[in-house]
């Protein structure tokens, strides 16, 4: 199998990290933000693995590989937790909105009937 040049993978890892970072700050939807965090993670892992592939011998450096393995598992845990948090957050916001609309619902309905279709 022809050798993989680490340089390309280093650049790709950095690029993925930047793309994830950008989307994390810009995208409004929580699901996209979770994906952006994951993409950032993948970028970092690519960096680690590319750095590990620079060894002079046949075997790549096993320590970064182990770190990436740990990182992948922690990533999926964080994703699961983040999605549960997002669900609860939306439920709480919904409750808040319903309480508000119930409070001034009577007034709003009166106004609404005036401008009724």
């Amino acid at each position, binding site marked *: 199998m*022809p*050798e*993989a*040049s*680490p340089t*390309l*993978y280093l*650049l*790709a890892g950095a*690029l*993925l990290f930047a*793309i*994830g970072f950008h*989307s994390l700050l810009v*995208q409004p*939807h929580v*699901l*996209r933000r*979770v*994906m*952006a965090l*994951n*993409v950032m993670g*993948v970028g970092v*892992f*690519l960096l680690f*693995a*590319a750095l*590990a*592939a620079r060894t002079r011998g046949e*075997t*790549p450096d096993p320590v970064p*590989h182990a770190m*990436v*393995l740990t990182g*992948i*598992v922690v*990533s*999926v845990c964080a*994703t*699961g937790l983040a*999605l549960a948090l*997002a*669900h609860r957050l*939306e439920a709480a916001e*919904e409750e808040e909105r319903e309480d508000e609309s119930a409070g001034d619902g009577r007034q709003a309905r009166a106004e609404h009937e005036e401008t009724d279709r």
Partner: protein
Amino acid sequence: MIGPLVDLLLLLLIVLLAWRALNGRDLLRGVIEFIAMGLLVAVAWVRLRALDIALAEAAVGSGLTGALLLSALHRMRRREVRRRDRTDGGEG
């Protein structure tokens, strides 16, 4: 010559899929593109001789994370439909 070319193609695809997953229109398509990106990243691990990571990435990084995202997406859509039904019923 063929090695760097394959790497370049692979990484271009990965970056493209990542960009589209995060900045595309449809959320469902985005999640699917994310899963596809994950699988290509597993190939990247093989290219970097990180076979243990490749196994874990394909199953956990791409597969399970994608399943979690799809499940969350489904829950959000269902909640939106329920909310819409409730407000329509209230005004009806």
